[in-house]
């Protein structure tokens, strides 16, 4: 009978709940921290958040970001302050979606969406330019022809948190800042990691944001 033993699993599985989906017609819910392609955010007044500081490019382990800064034109500034991101490109053939760029950005200009399904037919499409990355007037990502979107996909942004402290203490959260943003207003930040529940969350005793 031994050779039939293997079929036990097969038959057993027939009556279990199905885990596969009819992808791409149907998509699964993505985890909170899922990292998709980036967007470049704007402030509520429409100004771009990116100041062209190249910190994201500097930190990127895949070296896939190319940023150039330039003087903000005085009459029609692109971003608040002296400098704005004049060139911004991300090469999605290289990006590993580690989100270090998001961590590095001092202005929350770059965040990730949950969009990841691309079907490029040439390499230059894979290099997203600033025009493609920057959010539209509603604050939502702009659909590119090669991206697979279902209704509502664009509303899901990646979980963002900044729970880092210079001391590197993971339980340290301090004040989470999130400046007002086109389409989202002031977004609720994700809280830090839960450690031992019995431990106090903020070791330095400082209050969280509220």
């Amino acid at each position: 009978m031994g050779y039939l033993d293997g079929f036990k699993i097969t038959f057993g599985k027939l009556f279990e709940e199905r885990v596969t989906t009819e992808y791409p017609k149907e998509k699964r819910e993505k985890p909170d921290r899922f990292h998709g392609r980036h967007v470049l955010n704007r402030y509520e007044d429409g100004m771009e958040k990116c100041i062209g500081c190249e910190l994201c490019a500097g930190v990127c382990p895949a070296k896939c970001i190319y940023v150039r800064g330039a003087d903000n034109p005085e009459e029609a500034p692109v971003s608040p302050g002296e400098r704005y991101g004049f060139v911004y490109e991300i090469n999605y053939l290289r990006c590993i979606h580690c989100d270090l760029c998001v961590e590095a950005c001092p202005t929350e200009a770059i965040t990730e969406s949950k969009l990841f399904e691309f079907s490029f037919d040439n390499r230059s499409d894979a290099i997203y330019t600033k025009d493609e990355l920057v959010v539209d007037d509603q604050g939502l990502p702009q659909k590119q022809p090669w991206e697979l979107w279902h209704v509502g996909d664009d509303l899901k942004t990646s979980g963002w948190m900044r729970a880092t402290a210079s001391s590197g203490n993971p339980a340290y959260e301090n004040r989470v800042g999130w400046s007002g943003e086109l389409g989202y207003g002031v977004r609720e930040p994700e809280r830090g990691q839960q450690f031992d529940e019995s431990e106090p969350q903020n070791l330095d005793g400082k209050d969280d944001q509220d």
Partner: protein
Amino acid sequence: MPDSQPNAVSVTINGTQIEAEAGELVIAAADRNGVHIPRFCYHERMSSVGMCRMCLVEVDTGRGPMLQPSCMISVTDGMIVDTESDQTKRAQEGILEFLLINHPLDCPVCDKGGECPLQDQTVAYGPGESRFIEEKRHYEKPIPISDLVHLDRERCILCDRCTRFADEVAGDPLIQFTERGNETQVLTFPNEPFSSYFSGNTVQICPVGALTAAPYRFKARPWDLEQVESTCTTCSVGCRVAVQSSRNELVRYLGVDIDPVNHGWLCDKGRFDFEAIKSPNRLETPLIRDPNDKDQLIETTWGAALAASADAIKEARSGKIGVIGGSRLTNEDAYAWAKLAGSVIGTNNVDAQLGDGLPGKVVLGLPGATIDEACSADTVLVIGPDLKEELPILHLRLRGAAKKKKVKVVEITPLQTGVSSYAHRSIVCRSGEAAKTLKSLLTSDDELSQEIRSGSVVVILGRSSLAESALPAIEVASVITEELPKAKFLVALRRGNVRGAIDMGLSPGLLPGRVPLENPNDEIKKIWAKVPTVEGLDTAGMLRAAADGQLDVLILVGADPLVDFPDQDLANRGLRGAKFVVAIDNFPTLSVANADVVLPATAYGEKGGTTTNIEGRVSRLAQLVTSPSAARDDWMIASELAWRLGGDLKFSSMEEIWSEIEQVAPSHNGITLEKIWADETRDGILITETSIQLAIEPSGETPVVDGYGLRLISGRKLYDAGTQTSNCASLSALAQDAELRVNPTELERLGIQDGSEVTIISTKATGVAIAIADESIPRGTAVLPFNNPGIRANLFINSELPVTDIRIETR
């Protein structure tokens, strides 16, 4: 430092006993022993001021430990220094917290971010957290304090480095602290920009991003820069630089501190002229004269351009070929061209100078001095061009030495120069008559004459005016060799690697390695297919021959005689008279437009090799970026041409050329590639050996001016209409329009209004310029910059005469 010196003291730093020199600053002694004390205001090339207090350390001189600024106190015997004590740390944290109170933390948009001493030291020594939550002090964000430098007063930490530099080193005290207390700020004087030739240095030494350079503003961040160390070839001082690029584009040069040459400083022209290299005006493809329209140059292939050039050379009558230029080249390039001319074409008609220097034999025959020797001699005689305009860092070194009373600078000049401000004596003589003045000074019983005779003398010798021929300068040399036989010379030639090109034999009568043509060495006879025996023509000679139809092919290697040769009329006739002109250049210059074939060459930063400065110091050039076009290295062009002419230069890389130079050139024997690339050779390798015997020919007479004449004096300005400068967006705007400066009494005599247009008349040409009355100009002379926008002085100059006189008339 010195163990057995009498003034050595012994100090304990962090528990380790070290030897120091009495009088040495604690911070310097610590540096020398590998102990880093944080600092903002201390700079080893400037005096200490103790402004920032970042360098506080605990010092015990027997009275118990006390906090002391280590940049202000000197070591004493038995001193105990602790740079890591709790007290020291507390002080460092306190100072940093204090400095950051009003600091804007613009780091993400600050050009200094990523290489900022304030950032770095805050991370290393700071308290880690700020207690300051109040509103910070605000100023208008960057204000331009000159065309090249922006000042952001919010970021300034008042370290006094920039202001000290401007006053102490540059001698242009145009920025100062103003206001008091919390309002203290660096500012320029009203309506007076910080227009110093050295302003870029303040950007480099500012320990924060308060001073930023307009040409680098937002161009890159430190983490995307690539860097190599190289040598500046903008002028022939040969300052050490760090060349930085981002994405294959040059974006910044920084001065590198080497003792014998630049002490870390650069002039602004050298610092910012990288813009020319990425200029859209660069020549990108070979050009050839359109067969259908002789007025047009059209694009062609390298093959066709080289073939046409080779054919023209082959067809030329023997000996009727000339090569002008070479100071833009590396030593290797220059050698390749010297070999092409000598060994393949068989001519000695080569000249790296454009009739604006001194004969190669004089340059190599005079006993040479180094910059250091000049800065430590008892007397420095400056008889030549305005060093501030032409060799700015030499001027800075000399000024520093004069201010520290290390040398006595005596200047003989036809008009006030940048040197006059610190000269012990500035003797104004008539243009062309320096030798006479010098002779009468030295033979007089003037106290100065005794002082000059009794000590060591270095002569900085060059052409005081390009309206003079080389003769007056040669006369000076002959007076000196006669009167002061022990004096040494620093020959003030201006162009990049002109000295290297002469060393490599690109000068009539010379062979590579400072060897006279009459007496070739054995190696060259072995390695070269043939060695020319007849002394060739210099640039003036070649142009004259070409004008007379006596030269068939003229090859311009990075030379623009129409603009740079002192006599434009002759240059013009020469270029037109030559049957075929080949121009190898980076830019479409005026002369290039007159060529039959144009070959684009790679530029600075696009090729490696070596260069030689005015002292004869060979130092490395490094390649960092690739050429944006089909341009080729000059030595490759020489090799290709040689091959097409049926010769073979027998090298296929820069390294191979150097190895051949090392063999062929006696002065360069033993300087192997390994030596050149060794770390210790950062300072360069000084070559003093020469086989040239100086024979100064007796001079002619300086003609007398006619009663109505004004003697023309013409020198170059740092920012002029030269190719390099005019292709730099930031620098070209700084070139002032050419004006004719004349003493007011002369204008009065001629009935000319100050600021009005006048007609300039010389034997060569008539032209129009604005006449400006200027008290500082001696009577009987008129000063016109050599090559500034508007009108060029070389229109009027007659290179056949020792001096040029002009007349001016109202219009």
